[in-house]
């Protein structure tokens, strides 16, 4: 699968119009300068040679060197990926808390006011354009109220701590820098809240629907007829059975978020992997685009396998 993806990315990038040499030199460099750079970057070699070289490097764990900055792609990814993961983790926590709570309350009291509002919330947040919601939240909480910073990962003037894990919250604790911990947390609130809020709609809807379906099952009716306490039916019999689809949805959402939430990263100037990918595409920085896609694909594959294993562990009916 990874081989197919990496080959596809390689081919599609070469088919796409535009040239990294133009992106680096601008449109006014003379032919000699262009040709020299093309040779220097190895773009003068036949495409098949470039492909074989790329696959050979990939097999040996070498993602190549950025055409634009001459920096190893691994280094570029290792800087950007933790920012996206940090954002994804917090967004998922918020989305899970808000979404599942609303979905749960709606399922407990179907057709009640809270259920009705929860459904509107679910559809509303799902339908909201992310860039619009992000800008609105930014204007309210950062510009008008001034409670939180506009964007970025740290306040201007504060240097990044020596990187241990790449996760600012963790690194600031490891460096015993409490001020940085609070600053980075403060910068994380708006983007993760926005992303979490937008995702919570899917979570609430999926929990609500799954729970509603399960509550209509025969074994629930049977439990009720045996006089088992309603909350026990809910927590012991119904909720565990909704776990499987919920786990799948959560897992897939995490995978897509690690790939980056482009519009959120752009709006909040969050230096994550999606912003890096967007810039690399516009600069036709082939190795960076290829590297990022391969890494993201690998993570998605690993998470999918992880979910399958977890489902098999939770549900005794499933075996591989």
């Amino acid at each position, binding site marked *: 699968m990874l081989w197919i993806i990496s080959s596809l990315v390689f081919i599609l990038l070469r088919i796409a119009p535009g040239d990294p040499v133009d992106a680096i030199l601008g449109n006014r460099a003379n032919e000699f300068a262009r040709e020299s750079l093309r040779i220097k970057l190895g773009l003068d070699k036949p495409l098949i040679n470039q492909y074989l070289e790329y696959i050979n490097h990939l097999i040996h764990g070498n993602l190549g060197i950025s055409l634009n900055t001459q920096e190893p792609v691994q280094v570029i990814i290792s800087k950007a990926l933790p920012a996206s993961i940090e954002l994804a983790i917090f967004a998922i926590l918020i989305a899970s808390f808000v979404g599942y709570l609303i979905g749960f309350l709606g399922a407990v009291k179907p057709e009640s006011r809270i259920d009705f509002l929860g459904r509107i919330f679910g559809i509303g947040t799902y339908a909201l354009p992310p860039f619009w919601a992000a800008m609105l939240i930014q204007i309210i909480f950062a510009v008008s109220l001034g409670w939180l910073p506009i964007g970025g990962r740290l306040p*201007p003037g504060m240097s990044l701590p020596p990187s241990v894990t790449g996760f600012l919250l963790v690194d600031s604790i490891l460096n015993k820098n409490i001020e940085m911990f609070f600053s980075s947390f403060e910068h994380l609130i708006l983007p993760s809240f926005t992303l979490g809020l937008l995702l919570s709609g899917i979570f609430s809807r999926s929990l609500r629907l799954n729970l509603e379906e399960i509550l209509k099952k025969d074994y629930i009716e049977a439990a009720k007829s045996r006089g088992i306490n309603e909350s026990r039916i809910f927590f012991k019999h119904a909720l565990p059975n909704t776990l499987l689809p919920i786990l799948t949805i959560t897992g897939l959402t995490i995978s897509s978020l690690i790939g980056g939430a482009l519009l959120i990263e752009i709006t909040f100037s969050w230096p994550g992997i999606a912003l890096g990918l967007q810039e690399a595409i516009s600069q036709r920085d082939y190795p960076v685009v290829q590297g990022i896609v391969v890494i993201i694909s690998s993570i998605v594959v690993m998470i999918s396998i992880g979910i399958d294993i977890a489902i098999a562990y939770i549900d005794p009916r499933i075996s591989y």
Partner: protein
Amino acid sequence: MERINNVKNIIKLSSLILIVFLLSCVQNKKRETIIVASAGRIESLDPAQANTLRTLQILSALGDTLYKINKEGNLSPNLAKDLPKISKDRLIIDIPLREDVSFHDGSAFNAEAMKFSLYRFMKIGTLNYLLNNKIEDIEVKDEFLLRINLKEPSSSIKSLLTSVNLTPVSPNSYSNYKDKFNNKSFIGTGPYSLESFSSNQQIIKPFSNYWGKRPLNKGIDFVNYSNSNTLFSAIKTKEVDVLISNSIDDMQRVALNNMVKKGKVNSGEGDPIEIGFITFKSNTLPLEKQKIREALSYTIDRELISQKVSFGTREPLRSIVPPQLHKKESSPWSKYQPKLARTLLKKEGYCEKDILTIPLTFRSNVPADKLLALTWRDQIKRDLSDCIKISLNGVESTTVYKQLSDGAFEAVILDWTGAYPDPEAYLTPLLSCTKIKKSTCLKGEAVFSGSFWGDNQVQELLKKSEVLEGESRLNTLKNIEKLAAEGSSYLPVWLVKPKAWSLKNISQPEFSSNGLIILKNLKRE
């Protein structure tokens, strides 16, 4: 019921704690350094690689150039001790250097260091063709005397020596980077030294051994945001002290200008260095016909477009060189004359039965280009709908640049910023051509600019201008522009002035002749 009340109380208490926590997070510390914000990331601090205004901006504070252009538009020594001495045959330039300059790593600046930096640029610089086309070799005549031997006489080389790309770097610190880029650090001679670098944030501090006038501030923190909206919000909330205008949308420029009028922020403006224009491909029909191109040049209402697209923040332009570089008013392109356009087009057989269709390409990732295209199309629909029809086509900028020299675009909206403040830095990239057949350029810069327009007289005058100086040189360059206006393969539209806004407690931003803010003059008041 009691349980529900308890839950409500817990929620209320949690909310209160959260709000108090958030408010406590808001920083109220007094800033000492000045925070300057611009759009886009900085991936490299190597002057050999720098080609964006934001990178040149920070490099201008970290490094010095040999010469500067003063307010009167004349060359003035900076790292050089005196003006360059040019031999009679105009092939040798001697540059005496200052003797009291040191690099940020403590090593001394001398002719060897300057030679090292120039050769390094000529070897790996992304814009190295600017020097390679002109310089034969460089010699160290004395510890503080540099000699440049030229391939042929070049008057523009002096202005080229003001380019930030040619700022010297320390040979000691760059010994491992002779033929590769040093992206993450910079060791130069400038008023500031680099304290920390990441692609989103750069911190610079005053250099204690600086030879010249010391910075008036305690350091500059550069922050790079990814979009115009965040930049605008950042100055509005006082999160940053100074905002640089590159990549600020026109709507937000207007809002910032309104804030200036209300006394909420200061603003500073530099001489314009960026021109916006439309290129017509002159080697295929129908635009192969000069009269049709000329007719099109009468159809654009620059004042209207400036107002509609930028609320007047972009000045209408009728030349392909920023006016201050001419030193005198010069607008060789005609004003808006739809009647004359109609007459010319009628002579070419349009307006009665046939309608001239022009596919106009704009860079889809440049909002102002799209607005210009839409406005011009509607303006033509209003005034000349029986003669011309503009069809629009948005293409991403990297693709546009790649396909310009392939002749993919009949008409395309572009912009250009000269690498140094000299008319030649605008005329040569648009007009120079080394192989001409009839009026078509087969090889040269005119091919890369997508016009394919070649004129032997222009080439002769460009060559002649390199051996002239002063007024006669400027007049020659003006004549070149007149010929270009007659050829009508370019249609200048507007001029963009570099601008910066600062908070009220920060001094008004001042600009150098190359459109960069003089950071050392920023002061917290």
